[in-house]
């Protein structure tokens, strides 16, 4: 079993993970989230600066956590895309240097497929069954994938055509005067609210939209609808029922995410749904996914939360899977590709 170190720098988390085959040995995450808080969203230049400062200490910490030395490593894996270009380049530059310093092969992999790969690291003894539909939702992406083979056959079913779902949570949180990141704060406030208080729009769910965008998402209209609602109340001098707005907004997001994911399972005859990405931490998204999957006879898999948010262990795990499947290493001139398509599992 290959001992692989994975480097993830696609957004605001510097993640270094170490795995042996499908066994997790270390998962070190250094987040620049607090530096972005005052701006209400991830600032790419701030994220890229933080990656440069964090990467070497995070590698040292991961080696210590795993109890291995650099010389023990068999391969280096790195996220080459999709993600923020300047942030990705820090990881790619570092990964190439580490692979060359140690004279080990480099595997440049797809961040989204990495989220699916995280599932092989769960320690409950159950293996990922394929094919599976995967719903990956975070501040940086909202994608629905069909995974037939983790290392050779992944298809994009749909993705957001505007904001990522996590971004919508951040923007609505700002509107409501809640702190960044929006997800956990909206979740907290929404617990006291009525999810049926306001009927916010569900993006791309009308019949005419479904023809072209059956599995795509859109959250820009929802965000605008929430803003309009809040402005109307404030203009009229009324108090904004923050809990109800938060709960109704969260319900709209959870509804459309889970409805489309379960519909994909049914349409494609794939009775398995995997969730990944930081939005999995959202209690309502999880609960509604469980409820709808059960009703549709779809088995639902959710990796542990520490492996759902962006991390290097999932990148290392995908690298180890590629090695086990006999894939050749990536070329040393591989680039960071901010729009790397999901069909490119390895770059």
């Amino acid at each position, binding site marked *: 079993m290959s001992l692989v170190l994975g480097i993830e720098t696609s957004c605001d988390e510097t993640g270094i993970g170490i795995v042996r085959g499908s066994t997790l040995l270390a998962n070190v995450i250094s987040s620049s989230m607090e530096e972005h808080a005052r701006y209400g969203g991830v*600032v790419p230049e701030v994220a890229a*600066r933080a990656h*440069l400062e964090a990467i070497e200490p995070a590698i040292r910490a991961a080696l210590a956590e795993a109890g291995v030395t650099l010389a023990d490593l068999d391969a280096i894996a790195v996220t080459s895309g999709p993600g923020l270009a300047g942030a990705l*380049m820090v990881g*790619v530059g570092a990964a190439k240097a*580490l692979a060359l310093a*140690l004279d080990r092969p480099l595997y440049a992999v797809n961040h989204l497929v990495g989220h699916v790969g995280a599932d092989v690291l769960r320690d409950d003894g159950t293996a990922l069954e394929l094919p599976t539909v995967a719903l990956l939702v975070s501040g940086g992406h909202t994608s629905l994938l069909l995974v037939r083979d983790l290392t050779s056959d992944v298809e994009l079913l749909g993705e957001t055509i505007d904001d990522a779902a996590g971004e919508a949570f951040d923007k609505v949180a700002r509107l409501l005067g809640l702190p960044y990141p929006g997800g956990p704060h909206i979740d907290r406030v929404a617990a006291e609210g009525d999810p049926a208080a306001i009927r916010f729009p569900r993006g791309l769910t009308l019949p005419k939209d479904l023809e072209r965008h059956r599995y795509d998402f859109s959250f820009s209209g929802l965000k605008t609808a929430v803003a309009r609602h809040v402005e109307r109340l404030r203009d009229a001098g009324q108090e904004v029922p923050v809990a109800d707005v938060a709960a109704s907004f969260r319900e709209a997001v959870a509804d459309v995410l889970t409805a489309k994911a379960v519909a994909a399972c049914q349409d494609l005859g794939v009775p398995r749904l995997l969730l990944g990405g930081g939005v999995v931490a959202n209690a309502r998204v999880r609960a509604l996914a469980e409820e709808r999957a059960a009703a549709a006879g779809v088995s639902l898999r959710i990796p542990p939360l520490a492996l759902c948010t962006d991390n290097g262990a999932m990148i290392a795990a995908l690298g180890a899977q590629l090695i086990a499947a006999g894939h050749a290493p990536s070329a040393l001139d*591989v680039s960071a590709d901010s729009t790397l398509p999901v069909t490119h599992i390895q770059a």
Partner: protein
Amino acid sequence: MILAIDTSAGTSVALLDEDGTVIAERSTPDTRRHAEVIGPFLAEVLAAAPDVRGSLTAVAAGIGPGPFTGLRVGLAAARVLALGLGIPVLGVPSHEAVALRLLVAGEVAGRFAVVTDARRREVAVTVYIAALPIPAEAEPAHLVERLAFAPAPGLTVHEVAEIPAVWLARAAQARSAAGASFSDAAPLYLRAPDVTLAAPKRVSA
């Protein structure tokens, strides 16, 4: 042996012997492909002599100034290469490589400025006083509006588009030999990140 990396302009990687003899060098003026070319460049210089990995004593890193995205690629590579090889990383201002080259070639005397493009109609300027073995900084790297940049009388200006890693390595060797200190390889950004703290905009009229 010393390996030097500079990505503050194009990408330049060099491998030198202890006495400053160049063993291998790879450079490109391309300012858009740092993350790609750093891999093959490093691979080639590491393969240029027997047991380079075991013979290297330090990695010299150009700390800029330069456009941030590219600059970070070289610094990340230098720091992690040094970590992987268990040797120190020596941060050297990128302009110092040019200053040393000019001094050794006898092209400068007195006070002189090394200038590179900083984008956004600005230039990055470091003013040196001719001195060997280490060029002395009279004014550390700073940004000046290109059109407003008026060098003082007697100050010669040398604007360059490339930073040679060979001379960065020699600058590091000169500092080492003289017992001078090195920076901790922190980048010379000279600019705060671009961020706008816009309040949420109204969506209804």
